[in-house]
């Protein structure tokens, strides 16, 4: 059985990461922005796993566990902020949050 070559994983990861970046930059909803960040983190995770498998080394998987733990924490804090922002603004559009500019 032919195994899937490493490049395929990397290209898929790059595509997912780019979708995440574009989501962060252009979406007008904070929750979607948070989801896009998750997308970027998971794209990176995919790269780690691919290399771990390719090189036969365990370190990549360990890093992935760390990233997942951090992502979980980030999601918790991020959502909490989103809720309080929404209570304050009645909106989730990041373009309306410009109070701290000059």
């Amino acid at each position, binding site marked *: 059985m032919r195994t899937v070559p490493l490049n395929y994983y990397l290209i898929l990861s790059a595509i997912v990461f780019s979708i995440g970046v574009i989501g*962060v*930059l*252009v979406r007008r909803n904070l929750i979607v922005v948070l989801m896009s960040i998750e997308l970027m983190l998971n794209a990176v995770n995919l790269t780690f796993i691919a290399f771990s498998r390719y090189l036969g080394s365990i370190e990549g998987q360990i890093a992935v566990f760390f990233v997942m733990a951090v992502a979980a924490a980030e999601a918790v804090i991020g959502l909490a902020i989103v809720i309080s922002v929404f209570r304050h603004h009645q909106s989730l559009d*990041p373009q309306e*949050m*410009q*109070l701290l*500019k*000059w």
Partner: protein
Amino acid sequence: MVTSEPAVFAYDLLRWIPLVPLLGSVVNLFAGRALGRKNAAVLGCTAVGASFAIALYVFFQLPAPGIFRDTIYTWIESGSFNVNLSLHVDALAAVMLLIVTGIGFLIHVYSLGYMGHDEGIVRFFVYLNLFIFFMVVLVMADNLLVLFIGWEGVGLCSYLLIGFWYHDHANTIAGNKAFIVNRVGDFGFVLGMLLLVTELGRQGIWTLDFSELQNHVRLLSPAAIGLITLLLFVGATGKSAQLPLFVWLPDAMAGPTPVSALIHAATMVTAGVYMTARLHYLFALAPTTMSTIAWVGAATAFFAATIALTQNDIKKVLAYSTVSQLGYMFLAIGIGAFSAAIFHVFTHAFFKACLFLGAGSVIHALDGEQDMRRMGGLKAHMPTTYWTYLLATLAIAGLPFTAGFFSKDLILWQAFDQGELALWGIGLITAGLTAFYMFRQLLMIFHGERSAQQHARSHPHESPAVMTLPLIILAAGSIFAGWLGAPEYLWGSRWNQFLQSVFGVEEHHGSVITEIMVTLLTLAVVAAGIYCAYVKYARAAAGIGQEPASLLYRLSLNKYYIDELYDLFIVRPFTACARFFARFVDPSVIDGAVNGIAASVRGFSWVWRGLQTGNVQHYLAGFLLGTLALLAYYIGEL
């Protein structure tokens, strides 16, 4: 003039001489109101009295050619340059110390009565104690820098006390004048001090200690010594009111009379004399400076005496008389008679303090009247004041066996003895003028008749005992203080003997016969002065005074228009200059530069702040672009 190295002893008691008045001042400053006016004033007197007692004790402990030293701590330590905060007492300092604390104590006691009804009596004693502290530091300083602390400190206290009654604008102006004129002199002092340090430092000796200076002074080049001493003397002319910086002293009479007696007659104004005497080894090596000092002193003595001839304000006469007597002291310094100069400081402190306090007593009795033309006939009303005033007048005029006789004669004789006949002549004439204006004053105040109109206005009364007692002590001093320094043909001078450890042995050439002849000549001139005053003022009722309106008379009455000249040539151009700068240079150049910088910064920020949209997604886009650019760069590197 070679002195053997005197023995130095450490002595911790010395620091308490300045500390006690400082404590008195600080306690009164913070707790004076709580203590109550009377207690605060008594505390002020006690502090100075204790200081005097310690000084007296130290004086009797002082071994003949010895020095007491008290090093409190090292103030500045920079490489090989070392300045200690240390005090010392040698024969010269001991004498000055007794004058400052002793006369200071008497004047404090007098102030109890004189300032008794004043609202600000607590503040008065705070200042007065502070003055004693600084003056004692000045006198006991072991190096030039500590002396300078005292020097500036007494200047500050002088300023504060001249403007003591600050509700009257003229008093504040007088205080400012004293302060600013003194700044001019102090500038010279600082320059002289710096030059001394650097010049000696160039020879590898970094020091300001008096004893060290004395040991190494010969390393300096004559030109350097000349310049240093001249600059230091500029400082002395400011503090001791010599030509051309004497103008502040007559105005300083705006302060309360005890202040005039203490600061502007007996102690502070002699600081310049003391400083030059303290650095006598330096000045002795600068013949040009010495003759300058002698001539400035003689000119001041004569000049101020001629002004005093016609003044009508009781305190102004005494002020010009002080300037004149200080001139005598500098005349003595200039001819190298340091011991005689300090002797005149000593006797002058007694009789001038007595005169000022007597004048204060008169002013007090007449409810603030200071114009002598409206006095007269006070002899019957104030006998104690009259008799003490008379004794002090005799002393300043230099009648035989009074203090002024011995000290002034010593100066004149030394001038004659050294062949400085021109200086001697000026001094001689000045002695006659002194006798004239002092007896004119005495006759105008105490003799003659009081008109009924004046009787109706005020009822003069003798001052309370707390004021007359210091007067009596000072009057006794005006007679007996001089007996310490009698000439050789009488019973010899203990004074010179005592100060030999500082100034060395002074040489004399002239014979006793010449000395007596010179003295008799002085006495004749003095008698002539008194006679003129008697003829002119004894019978004339006070207040009439039909004075001749001659040119000389008007010149003298208006103080030679010196103040007006200074106003015209210095003050007005200066203020005009300041006004010009304030109106044009400051708004356009200074403010323009500052505002221009601010405006250009604002312009730049206006351009750049467009980038800061406040939108987090724009920032993230920037972040992404930056990351991509870095990535492209590193890939390009590969």
